[in-house]
């Protein structure tokens, strides 16, 4: 683990901002879970609670023109990139005011302005898409990178392999970020691959592979910065493996009983929010009041977001027939 990278002191404001972002993700997910239980969210939810530091750390190292693809567990990535929780909730509630006008839901959410090209319902599918986006970024002349998040389970899909090979061959500006949370659905890593470090797979493509403590937001941000600089310098892609853990089951409804309690306890004790807060306390003597202030702010923000989302209209049934094509050729393509 490259924890050493994060050994220099953290700037207080910056640290507080990163912390706030992680709290926002945590609370966004916790409240989404309640809202689903209350019947407001009709579809699947795959909460990323426990994995906030990867999202915030990676996004904290990116530039404006960068583009991202994500997974079924994508809320954190989107919030990390700066998406609007109100429009996210509206999408989860399947309302017209949502990011996708209620057509996508959790699995397909996007924010075009932020270069967030979408969550994805197909494991591994975001990987070639980001690779292709990087190709176009390179063709256009550089200055930006593409980033793709995916899980440990996704690294067994052909799309992972084919994409990394292509990107290394063409030295594409793309960062492959594996959130290794030790499980693919109900299957533990040692039941889906014999290796422990996904990062080792980079060697098949002559590409650097880095393992980082995915619960240390500062460390994640540092390795991402380095990888991004490499990419911008024309040196090609990097595979970053962030070791992390989801606190909850695979999706809302899964209790995660296939996981040994000691394992869960060990990771709960290494909570990414606490890791950063501990550091801020140590380095800047922050107190509980500061923490409460962040929490209260975030809560107010989410209250407002949820209130706004609840007010959004439901789409009209006939809107189903819109957006199938950019140009439906006078409706002919719909028949």
């Amino acid at each position, binding site marked *: 683990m490259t924890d050493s990278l994060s050994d220099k002191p953290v700037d207080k404001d910056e640290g507080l901002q990163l912390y706030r972002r992680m709290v926002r993700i945590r609370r966004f997910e916790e409240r989404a879970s309640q809202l689903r239980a209350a019947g407001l969210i*009709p*579809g*699947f939810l795959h909460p990323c609670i426990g994995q906030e530091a990867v999202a915030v750390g990676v996004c904290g190292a990116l530039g404006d023109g960068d583009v991202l693809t994500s997974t079924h567990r994508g809320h954190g990535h989107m919030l990390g990139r700066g998406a609007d929780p109100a429009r996210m909730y509206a999408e989860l509630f*399947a*309302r017209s005011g949502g990011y*996708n006008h*209620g*057509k*996508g*839901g959790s*699995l*397909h959410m996007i924010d075009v302005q932020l270069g967030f090209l979408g969550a*994805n*319902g*197909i*494991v*591994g599918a975001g990987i070639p898409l980001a690779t292709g986006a990087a190709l176009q970024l390179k063709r256009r002349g550089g200055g930006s990178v593409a980033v793709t998040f995916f899980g440990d*389970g*996704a690294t*067994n*899909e*052909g799309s992972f392999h084919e994409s990394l090979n292509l990107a290394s061959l063409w030295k594409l500006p793309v960062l492959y970020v594996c959130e290794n949370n030790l499980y*693919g*659905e*109900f*299957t533990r890593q040692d*039941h*889906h*691959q014999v290796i422990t470090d996904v990062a080792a797979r980079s060697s098949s493509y002559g590409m650097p592979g880095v393992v980082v403590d995915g619960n240390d937001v500062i460390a994640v941000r540092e390795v991402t910065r380095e990888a991004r600089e490499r990419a911008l310098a024309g040196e090609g892609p990097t595979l970053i493996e962030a070791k992390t853990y989801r606190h909850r089951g695979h999706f809302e*409804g899964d209790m995660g009983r*296939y996981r040994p309690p000691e394992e869960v306890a060990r990771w709960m004790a290494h909570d990414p929010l606490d890791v950063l807060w501990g550091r801020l306390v140590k380095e800047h003597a922050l107190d509980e009041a500061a923490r409460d202030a962040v929490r209260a702010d975030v809560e107010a923000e989410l209250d407002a977001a949820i209130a706004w989302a609840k007010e959004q209209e*439901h*789409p*009209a*049934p*006939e*809107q*189903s*027939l819109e957006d*199938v094509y950019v140009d439906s050729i006078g409706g002919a393509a*719909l*028949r």
Partner: protein
Amino acid sequence: MTKFSCADGIRQAIDEEMERDPDVFLIGEDIGESGGVFGVTKGLYEKYGPTRLWDTPISEEAMIGAAVGAALVGARPIAEIMFGDFVVLAMDMLVNQAAKTHYMTGGRLSVPLVVRMVTGTAGSTAAQHSQSLESWFVHVPGMKVVAPSSPEDAKGLLKTAIRDPDPVMFFEHKQLYGGRGGQVGDVVAVEPIPLGVGRVRREGSDVTIVSYLKTLEHVLDAAATLEGEGISCEVWDPRTLVPLDREGLRRSVAKTGRVVIAHEAPVRGGAGAEIAAVVAGEFFEHLKAPIVRVGGHNTPMPYAPELEGYVVPGPERIAEAVRRCLGRA
């Protein structure tokens, strides 16, 4: 109301066939210890253990490829595609390998494989977890295609599919599983049901409604409504799309002279197109009215319930389609 659901039927068929033949095994993602995302294979791991249930990494191509390869050397694998939408990742193994092997080898090798395709909407499952892709496989020579609409059919047809010497795509609609977690119901004895034999699910005289999977339930509801309007619907379930029971279909069309075809998949290029083409080509002399297709609109599946409800054909749209067919709309 019996407790016997489609999930039960499928589980029981697998169980009974696994008991009968040690070369029958299950392969898929999280189908073993965890019993499957929909609980369909619950209890089988405890009974048969890891040499009969193989949980694969998330690698659909290798998973289906492994099933095909095992079948080439004598196994009778049953592979599960957790959401039928993911079959796109295994199409080479199915279409270029499994379906063509017997033919390409001049009959010297065969692929006795069943692929369980978990299909259709289950409530805001959206564009990548809701598809009904049966029509693609209707177009693949070498494949058989099964689409049961009742627990008994699911059980009887799956038993036959497992014993069948050819690759069989077996479509299972999520909403027919009967309750998330699919609690084990009664064990109902069902004999294997031959492929290629349709079934009249309701007798009638004015119009034949052809349907299968979940949509058939909506058709039965529509037929009940229409009865109140003096329209007598015959509801015919092909049960298997390949082979198609032409004789059964002909009998019904000869009687009613009118055909409505209903399925959840998008209408354009759907399995209903083939059925319509068969009727218009082979039973034309019986036809008194245009063939009406009613099905999913030609859109991906939207997330919002209002939109999904609009795209998926329910009893009302089906009833309307029947009225149109009878010139009453």
